[in-house]
């Protein structure tokens, strides 16, 4: 399979970037997209050129590292997959493929296709945790009864891998799906409800501070999310935030 790749190259956060054309040959349909990128980088190294920087780690769809905007879609044309799970059989021989980094003011480009997603870390730091006394007498979580439906919903929300595809694909670069999943995975459980009001206010405020856009309910984030995080979480966070704010909770 021969491909023409149009890839964003940018030397550093403050450098000006541009789309650069690359031709690759010998690509097999069973290769993953990242393996195709590896082959391209090998060719560039052999030529003495700078390889293309991109994030990757587990290559199993778990870590959320691989962050490429491929042919106008986050993680490419597949559904419920990350870039590492995308296979080259999804493309045609001779096709032109656009490869860009996540685009958002809150996700500045570090180099080429790598972006700084520490804005997500700061949202988590603002409240995405449960305060637990770890002095040795912590209650066993299994001793707290939790309705099956709530446990399932919390677990579904917890499958968010924080890849940032929701931000990348949203026309407004909104982080509502990520933030709402991280709020819901705790607020649905008894252990998380104690700090529920502070959590939702603090995390939403941090999300706004980071410069993400507003949610206009297009639903694109849910479609492109590799873990299928539901829009229900956004509605739940809206309810929790409005309720907590109306009650004047700090």
């Amino acid at each position: 399979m021969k491909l023409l790749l149009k890839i964003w190259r940018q030397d550093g956060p403050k450098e000006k970037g541009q789309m650069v054309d690359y031709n690759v040959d010998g690509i097999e349909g069973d290769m993953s997209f990242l393996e195709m990128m590896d082959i391209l980088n090998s060719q560039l190294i052999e030529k003495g050129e700078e390889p293309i920087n991109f994030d990757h780690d587990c290559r199993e769809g778990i870590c959320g590292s691989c962050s490429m905007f491929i042919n106008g879609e986050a993680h490419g044309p597949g559904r419920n997959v990350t870039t590492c799970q995308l296979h080259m059989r999804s493309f045609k021989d001779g096709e032109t493929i656009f490869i860009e980094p996540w685009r958002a003011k809150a996700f500045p480009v570090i180099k080429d296709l790598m972006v700084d997603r520490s804005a997500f870390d700061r949202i988590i730091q603002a409240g995405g945790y449960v305060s637990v006394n770890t002095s040795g007498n912590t209650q066993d979580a299994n001793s707290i009864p939790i309705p099956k439906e709530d446990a399932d919903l919390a677990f579904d929300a917890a499958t968010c891998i924080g890849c940032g595809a929701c931000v990348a694909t949203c026309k407004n670069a909104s982080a509502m799906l990520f933030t709402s999943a991280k709020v819901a995975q705790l607020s649905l459980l008894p252990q998380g409800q104690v700090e529920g009001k502070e959590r939702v206010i603090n995390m939403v405020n941090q999300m706004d501070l980071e410069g993400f856009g507003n949610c206009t309910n297009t639903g694109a984030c849910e479609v492109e999310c590799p873990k299928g995080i539901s829009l229900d979480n956004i509605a739940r966070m809206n309810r929790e935030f409005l309720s907590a704010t109306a009650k004047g909770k700090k």
Partner: protein
Amino acid sequence: MASKGLLSSSIARKFAMALSALFLIVFLLQHMSINMLSVLSPDVFNEVSDFMGTNPLVQFVLQPVLIFGVCFHFIVGFILEYKNWTSREVKYAKYKGSANASWMSRNMIISGVVILLFLGLHFYDFWIHEITHKFIEGKDSFIVNGESESGFRFYEELRHKFAGDFPRMILYIVSFIFLALHLNHGFESAWQSMGARSKKYTPIIKKIGVAYSVLVPLGFIFIAAYHYVTQL
């Protein structure tokens, strides 16, 4: 971190936007229903229009609330759009928005601007004339004693506006199509922004939203076309 105040957060601004949207949705249904009377019964249309145009509660309470609601919806809409636009400083070379979201949901600002431009035309056609007639020329006496002297003019004014004016009818129809597109996403989106979403009620809200976004603009289109066609 303390709460920043109700309208300073993104979620609260969207909530306020949703509230104003639902208020305008109720107004639109009322407006279309009254306008439809001009097709069904000119006399009843005149009576109802006279009531709406002269009743102090409508004129001095509901009308200012409506004007505030319209202005609020547009101003907050533009503020949100500006924030959204600046949240992605470098745009994608290739962005396939149609792969995961409807045109209506991605282009609320376009349909909204068309509706705003239409409101300019609509105000020029009817509202400015009405305000001039009542408050500047003082031809209706309701200001003095609550009675209307020339209330039964509404039907003739409406007919006159569309008599032989094909471009105006087309402008109205095109605007109502954009209104339908705006409502198609806006109705459901308003509920989501308020956190109203459940497995039981969301499918019903979606169906009502689709029906509303088709039927109400279609009603307006029918009224404009009727008054043009019946005067050919």
